[in-house]
């Protein structure tokens, strides 16, 4: 089962058990949800209206799940997210597929590495980046119970195993030379790179990156001999840099951010693995980052 399938299964079950849950789509995945259901609304290829309709549903007490491919869910209707959801002070669960470049043969129009950074400009959003399909259902069920604003970023890329989800980082490995934070589906590559480099570092895993677990990071750093933090995110590099700096503001520290590079708009197609390599998000690139950053 893919993350997308886990999402559809979880929400479909919730439609039958929770009268608050509603789904709003703009064609993508619409056929996978119950048809002719009063709380399933497909607006056609109209993403601004998709978000506006979701806001209206929330204003009447429903819990809308809003879903599309990442650039069409987040970038195209960004002002609707800001105003129709945030400024109206209502909640919704936004679920994207496509991640940064799950299907790079479709080119730049279908890539959205800046999605989490865009949500980061708005107050009050939870952001979940599951790394395995089995992490999707528990994160989603919790989100559906609440009234807050949630963004969940699904990907075709996944780790070999699921980890417990919830707020806060999970320490998977302990070391003294520094801390590596791995977000969602980059975890396995991070662990391989750390092993290959025989780096004596703590590795923290996060499937929930907002709210940011400042306490967890500070504790992990305190248990090392060096306040050096490498964060690896599968979206725009440096997205969490400001929160790492804020968390460690009382401690002299070093930070290196790895993610989808900001300086180039790649016009290459190929595979997601090709793009990972171009952004140094493959095991080789991450190994190089670990080796150079934790040197000495």
């Amino acid at each position: 089962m893919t993350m997308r399938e886990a999402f559809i299964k979880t929400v479909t079950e919730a439609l039958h058990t929770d009268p608050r849950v509603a789904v709003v789509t703009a064609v993508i995945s619409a056929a996978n949800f119950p048809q002719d259901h009063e709380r399933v609304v497909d607006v056609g290829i109209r993403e601004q209206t998709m978000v506006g309709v979701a806001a209206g549903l929330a204003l009447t007490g429903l819990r809308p799940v809003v879903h599309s491919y990442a650039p069409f869910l987040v970038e195209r209707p960004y002002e609707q997210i800001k105003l129709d959801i945030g400024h109206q002070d209502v909640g919704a669960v936004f679920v994207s597929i496509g991640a940064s470049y799950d299907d790079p043969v479709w080119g730049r129009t279908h890539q959205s590495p800046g999605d989490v950074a865009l949500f980061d400009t708005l107050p009050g959003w939870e952001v979940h980046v599951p790394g395995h399909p089995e992490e999707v259902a528990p994160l989603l069920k919790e989100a559906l119970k609440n009234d807050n604003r949630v963004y969940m970023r699904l990907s075709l890329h996944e780790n070999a195993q699921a980890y417990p989800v919830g707020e806060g980082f999970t320490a998977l490995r302990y070391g003294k030379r520094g801390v590596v934070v791995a977000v969602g589906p980059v975890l396995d590559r991070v662990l391989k790179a750390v092993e290959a480099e025989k780096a004596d570092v703590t590795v923290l895993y996060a499937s929930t990156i907002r709210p940011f677990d400042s306490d967890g990071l500070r504790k992990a750093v305190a248990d090392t001999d060096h306040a050096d933090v490498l964060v690896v995110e599968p979206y725009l590099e440096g997205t969490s840099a400001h929160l790492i700096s804020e968390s460690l503001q009382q401690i002299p520290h070093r930070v290196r951010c790895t993610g989808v590079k900001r300086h180039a708009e790649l016009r290459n197609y190929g595979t997601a693995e090709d793009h990972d390599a171009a952004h140094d998000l493959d095991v080789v690139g991450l190994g190089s980052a670990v080796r150079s950053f934790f040197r000495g």
Partner: protein
Amino acid sequence: MQRIPEFFARMTGDEKHEWAAASTIDVLWVLYDRVLNVSPATVDDPDRDRFLLSKGHGPMAYYAVLADKGFIDESILDDWTSWDSPLGQHPDRVLVNGVEISSGSLGHGLPIAVGTAIGQRVAGSAGRTFVLVGDGELDEGSNHEAIAVAARLDVTNLTAIVIDNQSAWYGWPGGVQERFAVEGWAAATIDGRDHEAIYEALTARYDRPNVVVARTEKSY
């Protein structure tokens, strides 16, 4: 309506949008005086009618009517737009009792209204959704997404009011009414100053979404 000019006079400093307030005041008055089943005591009633001011510009008219009908204390009109005032030159639903949506940026209210109307239907409520947009505001593409989809979604409890004071930059071929009618809306054009015509149009019931084009002059 007797106190409306006095209320207007107490809110100064938004000359840019005074004409917008002058254009909407008659429709707003009839809505709150005779059409909407909402009062200060029922602003949280799930079965209330919902009025969404999409065209958030010129909210003096909105605030004046809300003050007259007791949703807000008229004393807060005097220092509107000041630091501590809940009343800005665009309304905020979190700050102002009775305001259903925060607006100002154009093109948001109609899609939200489709959602509230569907939500009312899901809840089995007899409440209706009314949304007021300007003809200039219709230039925003988001409105046309909502116009195109409302009838397909069978949103029969939705009434859009277009204040047509000829502000659309290039106008609408065939007129505003036709733009909605071609998408399956019940559509009528009325004199936006004629209270009886406004009342009749806003209380009419159809088996499809309804648009009332209220023509007014641009005036101060």
